[in-house]
């Protein structure tokens, strides 16, 4: 029973994090939410008796992918509609 409750809580959390990552306009927060998805997913893999996959997911999904996305954000734009805003501003000035 407690196993079922734990899995339900984790599934609700993972769906919540995924919805947050899609809705969020600040890409840095969205990337952190993606990392949380990977973390919960690795716990779920472990509970479903796939420790090999859980290790891979924890190392790649939580650490490497998140950091590479953060570096990409640092080198590009942080907000989703930053480019659109600039374009609108330019057209408004013209």
């Amino acid at each position, binding site marked *: 029973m407690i196993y079922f409750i734990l899995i339900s809580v984790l599934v609700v959390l993972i769906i919540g994090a995924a919805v947050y990552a899609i809705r969020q306009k600040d890409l840095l927060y969205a990337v952190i939410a993606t990392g949380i998805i990977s973390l919960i997913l690795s716990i779920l893999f472990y509970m479903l008796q796939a*420790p*090999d996959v*859980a*290790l*891979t997911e924890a*190392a*790649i999904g939580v*650490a*490497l992918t998140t*950091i*590479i996305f*953060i*570096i*990409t954000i*640092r*080198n*590009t734009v942080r907000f989703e509609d930053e480019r659109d805003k600039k374009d609108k501003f330019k057209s408004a000035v013209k």
Partner: protein
Amino acid sequence: MKKIIVIILLGTLGFYTAHTFFDIGFGFPHFEHGIKDVYLQKTVSDLKVSNTVTSIVVNFRGFDTLGEVTVLFLAVTALGGILYKRRHEVGERSVLFSASSIVTSGSKLLFPAIILLGVYVFIHGHLSPGGGFQGGTIIATGFLLMLLTYENYSVNHTVLSLVESLAGIAFAGIGLLGFMHGGTFLQNFIEPGVLNNLFSGGVIPIIYIMVGFKVGAELTGVIYTVLHEKG
């Protein structure tokens, strides 16, 4: 003339590929008796490996693993080729933000422990969960911590590519040695030993250690290249 030769060659290749696939016989009864039972039984009785996932990944499906390693190698090479010209010097805006003294001393303390964990994971790949890919990525996260913390921390690219290439050559070489001893590529030609011992499973631990070195070096190279890219 050239076109005719190309067409003939492609036709021959296509004919033999199609022939091989027809011979496999998808959908016929020999696929219904689960191959999983054979794998589970052979893992314990013939190979003496405790971790069935490892025995399938490295031994029964070893050729696929060689393909995966090749794909990773090609991806890393392409990334390095694209970003090579746009790299800036070591120490110049390489970290995301400057680290405090707590972070620097903490990561100095954690770095050997992370490397040790990664090495443990890929050496014990045939006994406990994990293996070359997992251990390699854990080692890469250790280097990532150091690269994020210290502004002038650098890894030697020559050493990285040397480790990577030698590990790949050793993997393929062990596969070729199988021809000399058993008859097929990646044949397990060393005596399996005793179940649950560290030295068991024949060539499986050797191959997984090579994969661990290769993946660790490649992912460290990826992080280093991306982190030092000129924005």
